[in-house]
């Protein structure tokens, strides 16, 4: 009865989320993306067995799949780590009711079994399992395997929750999260131990109906269940008492920015906001990890990789590396400040100064990334002219486009909401502007590249980019004036969505 009632409340909370009530654009985009992702996984599931037979050392595709399970779950761990939302505060309103608290914690934990993040891999595994297991082990073995795989997804999710909870207590537990992802890769490379052989053997045992493997996994889930329950209890009390388990951030401010006056104050405020908001921090960490990955790729790729892959990869990698943080943070302009925007608008502060500080901050980050990417340039892996052109093109027309979000953003953004992609605070204009920002400049570059060649294209990027960068005061002013015309609508949106 209680379970049913709570489920109904959750469903209502989901359906009555301002995102659903107000934003058809986001809704449609979300459905299309999920449908596309599901279809892609499904299609891949049908051909995966052939692919594994070609690349694997084992006789059966399922054996190869079992031997790479740790890598699959390392990737799954990473996805869940960044995307999965902390749900413990959802039960806060029920804590004072005559309901046993463990029942509430169990309710949240039971939701793991219907959580999208524990189901998405099944789109891939169901067709694959029936195709690759049934002919050799029978139909029921395939069913058992799918069930086992689903439990592994739940288990991985519980590990993610446990690690996230530990990170709330100390920043150092990020090392544990990184270790869990890196270890499966490090074992064969560093210790010369192939863990894949062990997972393959376990998989084989399971397919031969050795239910001890299943029992072992169930035992592990039970252990993680208890750990999660205990952690939830501590977390929720800390949160309700206002004593966060994690210590106050040691970052106070970058003193050299004080010389910049109001702009410096705003950049310091932006830095604090990013470092203290779990959601923004996750996005910046994710972007930085991606940039590091791109840097390493550029450094270690063969000299002819870009020529071979064509200019598309060339442009998209460059813009992603140089502009990703600006593009990701830029989509939240003024929405990130929505929880204290009334306060800002009544102070002796101009929103124009705020826009300018954001522009300097994102451009500074782009400059830093560009300087780092000079290393691959010196190694002859990247064209220096292109890198400089991409830098100016990013801080020019690309940031010009992303800053238009300041005019249209009117959704409330909870800085302390957990989960990088929970769609709250997301709006249709953000998605449209971000997509245009990421792809339109690349398409323009590709067309120019196709017609005029590299030198003209890079020169065009450099000139246009520099022109926009040099005139930033004017277009920021123009953006500010358009925002001021819409400000009441936006501020009402910030308030009503809160």
């Amino acid at each position: 009865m209680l379970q049913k009632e709570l489920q109904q409340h959750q469903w209502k909370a989901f359906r009555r989320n301002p995102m659903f009530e107000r934003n058809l654009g986001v809704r449609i985009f979300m459905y299309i993306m999920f449908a596309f992702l599901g279809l892609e996984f499904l299609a891949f599931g049908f051909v995966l067995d052939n692919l594994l037979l070609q690349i694997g050392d084992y006789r059966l595709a399922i054996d190869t799949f079992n031997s790479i399970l740790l890598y699959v779950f390392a990737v799954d761990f990473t996805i869940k780590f960044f995307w999965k939302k902390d749900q413990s505060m959802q039960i806060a309103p029920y804590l004072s009711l005559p309901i046993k608290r463990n029942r509430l914690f169990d309710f949240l934990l039971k939701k793991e079994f219907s959580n999208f993040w524990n189901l998405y891999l099944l789109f891939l595994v169901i067709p694959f399992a029936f195709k690759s297991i049934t002919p050799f082990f029978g139909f029921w073995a395939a069913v058992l395997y799918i069930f086992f795989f689903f439990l592994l997804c739940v288990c991985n999710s519980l590990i993610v929750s446990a690690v996230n909870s530990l990170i709330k207590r100390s920043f150092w537990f990020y090392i544990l999260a990184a270790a869990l992802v890196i270890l499966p890769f490090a074992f064969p490379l560093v210790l010369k131990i192939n863990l894949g052989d062990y997972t393959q053997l376990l998989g084989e045992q399971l397919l031969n109906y050795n239910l001890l493997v299943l029992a072992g996994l169930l035992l592990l889930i039970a252990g993680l269940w208890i750990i999660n329950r205990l952690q939830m209890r501590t977390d929720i009390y800390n949160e309700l008492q206002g004593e966060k388990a994690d210590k106050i951030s040691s970052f106070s401010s970058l003193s050299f920015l004080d010389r910049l006056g109001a702009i410096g104050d705003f950049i310091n405020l932006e830095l604090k906001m990013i470092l203290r908001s779990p959601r923004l921090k996750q996005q910046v960490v994710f972007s930085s990890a991606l940039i590091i990955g791109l840097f390493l790729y550029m450094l270690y790729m063969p000299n002819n990789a870009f020529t071979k892959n064509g200019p598309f990869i060339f442009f998209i990698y460059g813009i992603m590396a140089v502009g990703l943080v600006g593009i990701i943070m830029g989509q939240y302009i003024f929405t990130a400040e929505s929880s204290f925007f009334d306060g800002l608008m009544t102070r002796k502060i101009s929103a124009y100064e705020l826009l300018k500080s954001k522009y300097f901050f994102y451009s500074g980050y782009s400059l830093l990334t560009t300087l780092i990417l000079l290393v691959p340039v010196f190694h002859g892996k990247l064209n220096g002219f292109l890198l400089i052109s991409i830098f100016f093109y990013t801080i020019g027309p690309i940031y010009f486009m992303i800053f238009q979000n300041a005019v249209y953003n009117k959704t409330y953004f909870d800085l302390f909401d957990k989960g990088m992609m929970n769609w709250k605070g997301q709006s249709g204009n953000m998605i449209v502007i971000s997509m245009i920002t990421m792809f339109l400049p690349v398409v323009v570059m590709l067309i120019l590249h196709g017609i005029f060649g590299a030198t003209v294209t890079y020169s065009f990027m450099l000139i246009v980019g520099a022109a926009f960068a040099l005139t930033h005061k004017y277009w920021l002013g123009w953006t500010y004036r358009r925002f001021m015309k819409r400000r009441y609508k936006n501020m009402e949106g910030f308030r009503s969505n809160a």
Partner: protein
Amino acid sequence: MELQINNLVKRFGDKTALDISELSIEKGTLLGLVGNNGAGKTTLFRLILDLLKADSGTVLSKDADVSKSEDWKTYTGSFIDNRFLIDFLTPEEYFYFIGGTYGMDKELVDERLSAFARFMNDEILGQKKYIRHFSAGNKQKIGIMAAIMIRPEILILDEPFNFLDPSSQIEIRDIILRLNKELQTTVLISSHNLNYTTEISNRIILLEKGLIKMDKNNSPEAIAELNNYFIQKAGYEE
């Protein structure tokens, strides 16, 4: 005239939240705004602070339309609700940030805050926690102090006595009175606490469903009229 309101109307859908044909507030006035829930008190403050778009009419602050000029921000301090607080900052960081935007250095902010030592009761500064982790009462104190420390010419506080313990209510009452007396600050406060409001205000306005029901200088007769109004609204005879 410090503040001048003309034909100010604000509607939310079909409902008229505020309809004031004319209201003048002179410098040095300590105005108490009272009324039951939904009377339009917060809406009026938000319109004065240019946080809402009026359907018609104007709010002039020192003869400048607040929706067209931002000059009023340089001499107006305000605290309406938690949306005025930057809750991922510590109180110190918040005060320094706000002070900085008014050209105050850290020493001056510290000096101004020292005047609130008793009001803070050792519970605000040096706590090593973010504003979001403070109690409702202490958040209220932080917001009020940030509004006052800039020594505004106009001070707007929405329900300043809410969430405060009795000692702090007395303390904030005295701080407001001192500010009004020493700096001639024009103060607009709204409150459901009739005792404090009538005690400190020299002018009282009663709002009902967006309309001014009563606008009088503070006097025993005005207070009696107010009391009768609320008693009748509660369904009791006079």
